[in-house]
């Protein structure tokens, strides 16, 4: 350790420092995308009301994927919803996080044997936090958000990096089960 003089920080250190500061802001003002895919979405309004007050944590609903940080996948995901979900996920601005709420996102839940519902969400998009329970209680959902914040703090919530790193794997899975993501229907040919 040749000199104890204050040494200039290298570029990576500066970026890492900035990233930590950015993480502080990102975890204290998580904006969730108001995209309620399944039945677990009914848990979110109570989270915003005075009993649990999601705003305390700095979380609030935002209308469009561009503005939101957290994508809440609440409940079962049919093929059609999954296609729209993937398109929305790709529209979100980086760094973005996904919270899978409800057992349907974990292992297909009660619809595990249906022809229309997928069984495991993280095959298709990277999921940071799962909240188990067939309709988990609001506390559990809030707990999930707190876990997400802890993950961000410990720099482990890098699902979006995984999506970039092994994109082909995700894409292959998506093509396998969905056929094609961007479909044409009779109204938008």
């Amino acid at each position: 350790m040749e000199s104890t003089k204050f040494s200039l920080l290298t570029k990576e250190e500066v970026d890492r420092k900035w990233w930590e500061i950015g993480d502080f802001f990102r975890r204290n003002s998580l904006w969730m995308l108001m995209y309620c895919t399944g039945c677990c979405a009914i848990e979110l309004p109570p989270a915003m009301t005075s009993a649990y007050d999601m705003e305390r944590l700095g979380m609030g609903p935002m209308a469009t994927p561009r503005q939101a940080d957290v994508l809440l996948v609440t409940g079962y995901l049919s093929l059609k919803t999954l296609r729209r979900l993937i398109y929305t996920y790709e529209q979100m601005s980086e760094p973005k996080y996904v919270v899978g709420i409800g057992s349907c996102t974990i292992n297909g839940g009660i619809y595990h044997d249906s022809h229309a519902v997928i069984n495991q969400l993280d095959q298709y998009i990277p999921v940071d936090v799962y909240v188990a329970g067939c309709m988990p209680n609001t506390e559990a959902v809030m707990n999930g958000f707190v876990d997400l914040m802890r993950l961000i703090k410990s720099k482990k919530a890098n699902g979006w990096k995984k999506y970039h790193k092994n994109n082909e794997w995700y894409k292959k899975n998506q093509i396998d089960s969905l056929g094609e993501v961007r479909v044409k229907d009779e109204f938008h040919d």
Partner: protein
Amino acid sequence: MNSMTNIKYVSSLVENRFKVIKKEIVSEYQISFEVDKDEVHRLLTLLKLEGWIQLSYLSAIDWINDNEYELVYIVMNWEKPVHVQIRTRISRENPSMDSILPIFPGCKYYEREVHEFFGVKFPGNPEYAKQLILEGWDDIPPLRKDFDPRAYSDAHFAKREYTETFVNLNNEKSKQVKREKRKERIIRVRKGGKK
């Protein structure tokens, strides 16, 4: 004009005109007739003239062991509030039934749905073959009895594999002990003991 007179009115109206295979009063406001396949059109036109102007639902039931589909038309009358079910049986091999588009234009989407989920053809409705709900479906119509959704799900969607081992928390006493202590404390507090 209570419902009984309506039911009687309808059954008398239909019975003396058509050979009803089976008649069943489902509930206070609902009656169902099973009729031969080629009389369905005339019956529906008659009912429509009598005031049953709304086609509430059109669906099919798959009797796989009789090797038949059963089509159910439910029509509704606003003045005399009675739902009339018209049921017919059609064969399961290349099932087809003439469309009732001219009588009830509303049937356009029902027929597309029945075709998509059961594979029944409806000549006379130009769009019956178009895709309605399932996007890019490549298997046999899913609601047929001989379709196994579980097999489809296993084939297409990866399942989460759970290892069967039970993990006992190595040095942590199982939670059961903690639960009993908590129960006692609650009883004690209820009796007014110290917290």
